[in-house]
Every structure is written in structure tokens, then in C-alpha cells.
């Protein structure tokens, strides 16, 4: 909670957090997809500079980005181990059966830069946009209400269920459950089953309470869309940058 509060303080007032979500989401998604198109190595420097600029505008500390990159970084490590030694024919350096290849190294550079660029923009986007605003933006982009309702409800329950699961596992450990072998599968299956039964019972109660308050009878209108000039300006810059990457890839 403290970390979340610190994060809100860090991004409060930043240009990215003031950008209307209904324009920010399509704008930055277009930019992210233009990053995905890049195959030309000459575009990698502009790509990483653009990602750094977007992150700077979010007002987030650099340490937050590094903490977010930690988990997906393992994937990058796997690629870094495989590609330079398995892909390509131009051998740069050889030690016994191990051969460092040029094409693999360039492939790694391309994948790693795009991966870090896309993640940096995505982290800035979602750290400066609360999920409720993301949902409104998705609805205005034409995503069916069934998906957006499902998204909000799921988000509402994730933390609670993770806590429930943790509590059940602690209770199992207190009763002597070790869980270090395949024989623990049955106990884990029963813990999962119990969690599903409990969740279902709770869902029944929540749904009945919500139905009593009118859920399912009417569709609430989306909050008023009141963009200012700055919102359109930022969208135009994002679209222009994205166009630049597409043109750079396919024309120049």
C-alpha cells in the first residue's frame, strides 16, 4: 500500500497522468505497435529514445521501471543465452563447440531493444492510468461491456483470493503439510477445489447484493468525454512518432 501511495504521488501532475485516458490508451498503443513493426537496426536508437521520453513524461522513478522489468527479464536472459550461439552462420568467435554468431547477436539486439522499449511505454501507460480509467477507455474503443465488466470484477477479487489461498496454505502447513513432492498433488488439488467452492459461494452473495442494488438492469453511461487541446496534441505527437517508425521501416 505504501508503495502504491508513493507511486501515485510520483505520477500526480505528470504530463502522462493528466492525458485523457480515452486518447492516451489508443495513442500509446499505436506507438507500442509501431515499435513491434521495427526490424531495421537503424531504428533501434530512436525507438529507445522515444520510450525513454515517454517514461520521463510519466514522472515515475527509474527504480520502478527496473523492478517491473525484473520478472520478464528472465525471458530476455534465456534468449540471450540461446540466440547468439544458435542462430546465423557468420562466426565471430569460437571456443570449442561454442561459436558466437553475428546474425544471432543482431537478432538479440533487435528483440531486446523492442522488448525493453515496449515494456517501458506499457509500464508508463498503466502506472499513470487507474484501471477504472482503462476500462472506460476500452469501452469507448468499442470493447464489449461483457469484457470490461469481467475485467473490473476480476481485478476486484484477485487480491482477496490470493490472500485466501495463502491463508489456506498456511493452515495446511500448520497441519503438517510439507508439499515438497508429487504426492502433495492431491492436497493442492483439494486446496484449489476448496478455494473454488468458497469463491463460488461468495460470488452468489455478491451477485445477489449487486442485483438488489440494480446491477444488470440498466447500463450506466460512460463519464463525460471532455478532452483539452493538450490531450489532442499528445495524441498527434504519438501518432506522428508511430508513423515515423512505420515509414522508417518500410520506405527508408
Amino acid at each position, binding site marked *: 500500500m505504501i508503495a502504491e501511495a508513493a507511486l501515485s504521488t510520483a505520477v500526480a501532475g505528470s504530463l502522462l497522468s493528466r492525458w485523457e485516458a480515452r486518447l492516451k490508451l489508443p495513442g500509446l498503443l499505436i506507438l507500442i505497435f509501431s515499435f513491434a513493426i521495427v526490424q531495421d537496426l537503424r531504428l533501434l536508437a530512436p525507438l529507445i529514445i522515444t520510450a525513454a521520453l515517454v517514461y520521463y513524461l510519466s514522472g515515475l522513478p527509474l527504480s520502478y521501471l527496473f523492478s517491473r522489468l525484473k520478472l520478464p527479464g528472465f525471458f530476455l536472459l534465456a534468449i540471450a543465452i540461446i540466440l547468439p550461439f544458435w542462430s546465423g552462420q557468420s562466426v565471430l568467435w569460437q571456443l570449442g563447440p561454442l561459436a558466437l554468431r553475428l546474425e544471432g547477436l543482431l537478432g538479440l539486439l533487435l528483440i531486446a531493444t523492442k522488448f525493453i522499449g515496449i*515494456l517501458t511505454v*506499457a509500464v508508463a501507460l498503466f502506472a499513470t492510468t487507474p484501471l477504472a480509467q482503462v476500462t472506460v477507455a476500452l469501452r469507448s474503443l468499442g470493447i464489449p461491456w461483457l469484457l470490461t465488466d469481467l475485467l473490473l470484477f*476480476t481485478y476486484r477479487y*484477485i487480491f482477496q483470493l490470493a490472500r485466501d489461498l495463502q491463508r489456506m496454505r498456511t493452515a495446511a502447513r500448520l497441519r503438517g503439510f510439507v508439499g515438497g513432492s508429487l504426492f502433495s498433488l492431491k492436497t*493442492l488439488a483439494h486446496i484449489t477445489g476448496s478455494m473454488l*467452492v468458497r469463491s463460488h459461494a461468495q460470488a452468489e452473495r455478491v451477485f445477489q447484493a*449487486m442485483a438488489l442494488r440494480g446491477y444488470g438492469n440498466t447500463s450506466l453511461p460512460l463519464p463525460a468525454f471532455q478532452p483539452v487541446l493538450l490531450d489532442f496534441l499528445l495524441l498527434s505527437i504519438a501518432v506522428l512518432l508511430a508513423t515515423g517508425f512505420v515509414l522508417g521501416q518500410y520506405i527508408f
Partner: protein
Amino acid sequence: MHIPDGIIPASVAVSGYAATGGLTWLSLLGIKKQFTNPRNGIPKAALLTAAFFAASLIHIPIPPVSVHLVLSGLMGVMLGWFAFPAILVGLLLQAVMFQHGGLTTLGINACLMGLPALVAASIFRLRYLFGKEKPLPNAILAFIAAFLAVAMGALMAALLLIYAIPVYIDISAERTAVLALSLAHLPIALIEGVFTAMVVLFLLKVQPALLESEKL
């Protein structure tokens, strides 16, 4: 099973979104047929999605490593038509909250997990032919559904990764990699099958109504 951002060409990522759009549309049609007011099914489906999200934090030891459960088969078994939208939402939240998976690859990942989940749902529906209250047919069908869901997802992911990586890898190395990646998932698929069968047997005893996806 999750394909991250930056590794596959943009054309493949866009095709993934198109396929996901189609499958979502198909699922929504199925849901609308099933419910007079589809909104009624959302709170329960969301709670189960969150439950699956939390359950994927459970790690199963396969010496010398431990793997986390995929549960796409169990989602298909329990959620029916809701499985695809639920997986899509679960993957979006994983990408947004943990940077697990990717935004540009969300469509592809949803297909890799969601399509096998729909296949699992169809397989498990065969229990109505063999007796929906009998433990043995339920357990066998749950095993097959979950095993196939993981195996199919892993095979699809392996093929996609090998053929879509935008760098040159020779054909024999490609074949070896596909085979190795698929074989590596075999024990996971087996464990997932056994685990799902155990959960289904538990639910059959405790709350069989939970296995009736059409009564979500």
C-alpha cells in the same frame, strides 16, 4: 506459454488480435445463447477468473524444478463459453500488473491458451453422454481435457516461436527445438491432467453444480 513483446513480427501479433476478436465474438454469441441476461453470469465468471489467476501461483514440484499450473483446461471445464473471455481478461491483467506476457502479443497468447480451453470445454461436455454424476468418466474426461489443453497450447507456442522468430535458424535446429519444447511440456501436461481430474472429483463430491458451466 506466454509469448512476450518484441519477439514475434508485428504481422503475427496483429493476426493474433484478429483471431482473438473472432473467438471472443464466437464466445459472446455462445454466452448470449446460454443466458437471457448475460450480465448475470459475469460476477461468478469473474470470481472464478480471479480464482484461476490466484491458483496459477501454486507451484508443483517436478524434481529438480517446480512449475506453476496453467489451468487452461480447468477453466474450459468449469467456465464453458466464458473460458475464452476469462482467459483474455486474465492475460491482460497479468500483462498490466506483472509484465507477464505482453501487450502486443495479448491476442496471440489469448489464442494459445483460450483455444485449447474451448477444446477442453467441448471434451468435458461429453460427460453428459457417459453419466455426469459418475466419478470415473468425469475424472477421465477432465484428465484428457486438461492434458490436451496444455499439450496443444505448448505445441502451438513452440511452433509459433520457432517459425516466427525473425532470425535465421537452420531447419534441423528448428525441428529439434520444437521437439524439445514440446517434450519439456509433456510432464507438465500430465501433472495438469491429474491435478484437474482431482479437482473435478473433489467438486463432484462437494459441489457438483460448479461443474455445470451452462449454469454459471
